[in-house]
């Protein structure tokens, strides 16, 4: 059935293309180019990113040095009443010794690897439901949208930025790009780095009830970005 269905659709498309009226389709394919300059560590880019994310009720914390990150993370986690956290592996966070430092501040990482069979997968996922914060790195940020970009993969799970009510991401100030087209034109390989790439622009939100903006309907209600030099 499948091969026949496929052939039927492709036949129909090819027959259609002979007669299709397609304005502006002639000529070569446009090649979108981002600004070729590397992402800037300029104060401007960080400023623009901070302004955009703050307007979306995300919070930006600047760490003067990497070794200030554990204290910042611990303070934010305590603010949200969290004791455990979901996280990317330490090697993907860019802060050596982070987990030990957090453990000494009363914060334990909850490790997980969803099983492949349906029943135990469900039990496993349910056990993660109560964890208070998620901690991830960020591969890039988009200044004009106030978004952080996360490439998920081995040791870099999706649930850390998705399940807990608060998400903390550690971003390098050197990875702030002006726009999404700039990033995707310069680093198309990000799409294929793992099974999932996500750009996150502020906390989860909805305005479905009486058009009133409300946060945290499905994803995290709070988003904190710690920017390191």
């Amino acid at each position, binding site marked *: 059935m499948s091969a026949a269905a496929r052939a039927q*659709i492709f036949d129909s498309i090819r027959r259609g293309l002979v007669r299709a009226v397609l304005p502006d389709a002639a000529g070569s394919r446009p090649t979108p180019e*981002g600004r070729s300059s590397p992402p800037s560590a300029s104060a401007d880019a960080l400023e623009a990113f901070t302004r955009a994310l703050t307007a979306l009720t995300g919070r930006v914390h600047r760490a003067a040095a990497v070794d200030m990150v554990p204290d910042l993370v611990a303070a934010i986690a305590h603010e949200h009443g969290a004791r455990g956290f979901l996280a990317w592996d330490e090697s993907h966070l860019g802060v050596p010794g982070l987990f030990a430092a957090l453990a000494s501040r009363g914060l334990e990482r909850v490790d997980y690897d969803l099983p492949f069979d349906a029943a135990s997968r469900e039990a496993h996922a349910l056990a993660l439901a109560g964890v208070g914060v998620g901690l991830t790195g960020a591969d890039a940020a988009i200044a004009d949208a106030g978004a952080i970009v996360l490439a998920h993969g081995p040791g870099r799970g999706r*649930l850390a930025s998705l399940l807990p009510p608060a998400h903390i991401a550690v971003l390098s100030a050197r990875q702030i790009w002006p726009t999404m087209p700039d990033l995707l034109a310069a680093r198309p390989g990000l799409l294929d780095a793992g099974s999932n790439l996500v750009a996150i622009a502020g906390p989860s939100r*909805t305005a479905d009830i009486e058009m009133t903006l409300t946060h945290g309907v499905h994803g995290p209600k709070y988003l904190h970005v710690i920017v390191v030099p």
Partner: protein
Amino acid sequence: MTEASARFHRSVAEALADPHLRQALDRTTGRLAGGLAKAFATIPDAGALRDTARRIRAHTIAHLDQHLDQFERAATARGCHVHWAPTAADATRLVVDIARARGVSLAVKSKSMVTEEIELNAALGAAGVRVVESDLGEFVVQLADDRPSHIIAPIVHMSRDDVARLFEDKLGARPDEVADIPAITAFARRTLRQEFLQAGMGISGVNLAVADTGSLCLVTNEGNGRLTTTLPRVHVAVMGLERIVPTAADLGVVLQLLARSATGQALSVYTNIITGPRRPATSDGPGEPDGPDELHIVVVDNGRSRLLGGELAEILYCVRCGACLNICPVYHHIGGHAYGGVYPGPVGSVVSPGLMGLDEWSELPHASSLCGACRDVCPVRIDLPRLLLNLRAQTVAARMGPAWLRIAMPLYAAIATRPVLYRWLGSLAARLSRMMGHDGWLDRLPGPLSAWTTERDFPVPAPRSFVQEHHAHAPRAGGCE
């Protein structure tokens, strides 16, 4: 009048008579159109970007077979199962079979228009699979057994108290759990989170697919799209066969325009790009800790390839942003339901008859003033008025319009091409209407034209025609003709 057009006129009349809907539409369409203008003001090269996006979409559709073939190979190489569905029935059968084979009894769903087009929920329900809509608004609609009132504001017709009562009745919420909007939202989060954690299958649409990596891009604000495509063991993505761009860079261009056009955001909260199912451990290293183990992509034709072979093919450039709805004065007055079908507004007036034929949808191309606002706002500059006119011509050629119009148009043509007769009849009509008007307005026009004056008055023509004024004022000699 056919039954279909009678139904259309009935639902238009209902929509116009519903003050609550009118108020809701005023708020939503006004706010969205305003947000769009502001969002575009922040990008310096918006015009050029639109041109690029248009050429990307045009070029993609012109080589659609190659891009779909490349997409299939890339997605398959990354572990996806790609299925082809010539019709809606094929598509629903494919999804039902996938659910059955895996013993799925609960599926969570992230809102998508193509799954509504193929009526997937009904098919899954009939097969014993409970489907939970996970967008807050769609969830409420499903719970209330109601229907959405606006594409992106589905429960704008309900108050917070309506939603609170519903949660108390249907979900056993205590009054303090639904005391205000944040509480209601938190309650919905808890309820839906349980469904997400237990569902065996997640069902989504696809905003855009990327041919060279086999990726799927899905944008949402709530995050339900991410949960749908991450927690359940099986993810089924349903996509119309035209929703494709060649590369990541092309995707970037369209994304720069999509959310701005839809809601006035620079990007939606979550721009979620999925490339294959969760990657398992290999000899080189560990696998991914989460994500679906299986990813099925159902590519739906359902009339699209037929639409491609003709004058309407340009509508396949559409990226479903909804901007043409919010800017449309007709949509502003009659809302989404009056259009029938899944796709409302100017885009729906082309897509519905384009996909499903003019028989049932011959009224839609006429539900437009051809003002051109939709073409101006469209991020890929689709010439919607041209497409609507083309469909109108088809209805006339197929003798589908109302009988009086079929007589009136040739009659008008006969008069308008005879200047003396035209002027004489024109001044006669002007004189008559001035006799019947009050304070410069006519409150009733004769015959079929009375449809105009049921909702508004018609201005009495000026005492002298344009040609008379022109002769009076234009210089005698050397003036322009």
